[in-house]
């Protein structure tokens, strides 16, 4: 027994505008964060030593915004497998990328 698609479409039109504003929020946040990243480097307001950490933080925040809003990752049950997969990937990537940078920078100093 499949529910009638037409009635379902009607029952959810309220949700459409809700989702639209959510996506728009994502767009606004992304623009703000991108502008902040550019400003970090070119405005001259941020001390040099803080630039790269600042860029890293802004990039991570923006990635989380993208994941949450555009890729619909959340803590609900049906997304749990996706989220776990993502976290596991981040863990492995962390091991590999951190390991690579650690090993190679150490080797660079000792060569």
């Amino acid at each position: 027994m499949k529910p009638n698609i037409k009635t379902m479409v009607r029952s959810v039109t309220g949700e459409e505008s809700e989702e639209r504003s959510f996506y728009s929020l994502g767009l606004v946040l992304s623009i703000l964060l991108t502008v902040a990243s550019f400003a970090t480097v070119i405005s001259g307001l941020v001390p040099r030593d803080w630039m790269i950490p600042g860029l890293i933080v802004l990039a991570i925040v923006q990635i989380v915004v993208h994941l949450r809003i555009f890729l619909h990752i959340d803590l609900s049950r049906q997304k749990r497998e996706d989220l776990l997969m993502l976290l596991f990937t981040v863990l492995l990537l962390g091991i590999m990328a951190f390991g690579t940078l650690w090993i190679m920078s150490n080797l660079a100093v000792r060569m």
Partner: protein
Amino acid sequence: MDNIFGRLTWADVTLFEVFKDPSIDTAVASAAAWIAVLGAVAVVALLTFTRRWGWLWREWLTSVDHKKIGIMYMVLGFVMFARGIFEGVVMRTHQATALDGGILTPHHWAELFSTHGTVMIFFVAMPFITGFMNYLIPLQIGARDMAFPMLNQISLGLTAAGAALVMISLVLGVFETGGWTAYPPFTGAAFDPGPGPDYWVWAIVISGFGSMFSGMNFAVTIYKMRAPGMKYLHMPVFCWTALCTSILLTFALPPLTVAGLMQGLDRLAGFHFFTNDLGGNMMNYANLFWMFGHPEVYILILPAYGIYSELTSTFAAKQLYGYTSLVWATMSIAVISFCVWLHHFFTMGQSPTINAAFGIATAIIAVPTGVKVYVWMATLWRGRIRFTTPIVYMAGFFILFTIGGFSGIILANPAINYQVHNTQFIVAHFHNVLLPGMLFAIFAGIHIWFPKAFGFRLHETWGKVTAALWIAGFSMTFLPLYVVGLMGYPRRSSAYDNPEFVPYMIVTLLGAFVLLTAFAGLVGTFVVSIRNRRDLAVPLGDPWDGRTLEWATPAPPPHWNFPVIPQVRARDAFALEKVEGRPYVVPEEYRDIHLPPSTMAGVMCFLATTGLGFALTWWIWWLAALSAVSVLIWLIGHSLRDHPHVVIPAKEVHRSNQAWIEAIDLATPVDRDHETKRMNRGFAATDMAEAT
């Protein structure tokens, strides 16, 4: 375009080398080329004369049935295994004569150890485990097929394309000579501009994509396609190991792909990733390669652990001891295997802190591995062990694999590693874990599941003798290498000048011949079994008193696996039904079954990527473009057509299942004492029921 074949010329054809410059060396090379060519011609001729082309195309090459794809993986593995074994024997023959020389030229020797390693790891071990996972996963989790059947076929096509490139290198040109790891800059364009390293790069990258897609496919299948009621902790241990292997395949292949593609860019386009000059850094390659290479070891060994788990519990007629421990051990191995890669280059010059950190991680990974061995012992304890062929392999595994693990933990200590790295000690170690660890499991697994796949058992006496030969051959060939390794004999060395090595190398040579006999024994087992297939037939499907869902189907299982998707309540679903005395229940209602349609996607991808790899190796640019464009156009075209499912009517399912159930009703259950006798038709009387 001055030459439509790029840089390929007549001089690259190795078939006639022996006539131009007769020697043992060229004779070996040309013989190998002729065997490859004549073998291909013979297969084509056989198919033509028996008019089997249509059958091959319809039933096999275009099939998306996971069982058939699994079998094709095994066949591919066996063809390549034959090559790998022969190469091994030629190499050992050379080494036994290598005091100050040897029968081969150093160049040919280098080609041999490089192809032997590449073939054995990528085109024997990988197809074998992929084949097993393909065949078993859907059956064990109660599914009809993989999550992505067409992708599954494409994976096979890509793996076969890699294998094809390695085979083509026998006939056209030379192969790479820097070992299966192919470290630059030795394999870079500055030192080896020839086609050898290109063959390696493209074979590895293309088959690597195949393995990666397989991994994703298996992972999704296990995550999403389990039968209703089958919780994660109800899955057979093999499925757990397969799940972890799939995750490793998904995440560990990217470093290899990246390293391979960068090497390809260095060689083809003059990039500077791993070159000597302009900021290239070969240490990056070592780092990337082993970031793949170490998880790869566990990709190969975990499914083998799964097979050992299934076989101990089956042939001891016991529930598996410590299921949860095994699951935890498997998962922790999967994760830790990503934290140990540096132990393959302890001697590159990094600080002792880093060496110690990775040394400790390596020692830690031994804990779950050790636990597994104890778990299998505990499973056998107070069992009723039947000494069938798989148990013979298992016995060999216990002793030999433990020795391999022993040497592994020794290698984990950087202080010792400085002395034995890159020596024959390493060669002994990894053969010691891969042969008894992985290959024995594959052979044991073949004995167990061959009857499921083909409907008849393998000949038991032949099987046992072969198993004994493998064990003896392995011990003779590889254990002496530990000693010469400690004495400072480097690996990959075509000659030595220490006469003390000679006796060891002669034992090794004898061992290699025992291994060759064992291989012949394996072939003999198949031949004898096929001849006696009527006596060995087990059409009812459960010759070994199996415990998991795949045994609750006829042998061979129908295309759709299960007439009705089973409901699962607990672990060892089929064993439970048998103990409770109600296996083989007739379903209340049959429904139409929808199966994915056949497709030529796999063949297309095979042809296109073989062409692409060959073209990039020989700089035949038009062929490269043609291959890439044609496969893209085909795939897009494919997506624009409708591909209706194949529907098996409920009546057909009913008829087929009813015939099987009726045959079981007529049969008498066979006691385990007669398991290997003719009366075993695949309807088992279970030991477990008697005890409870």
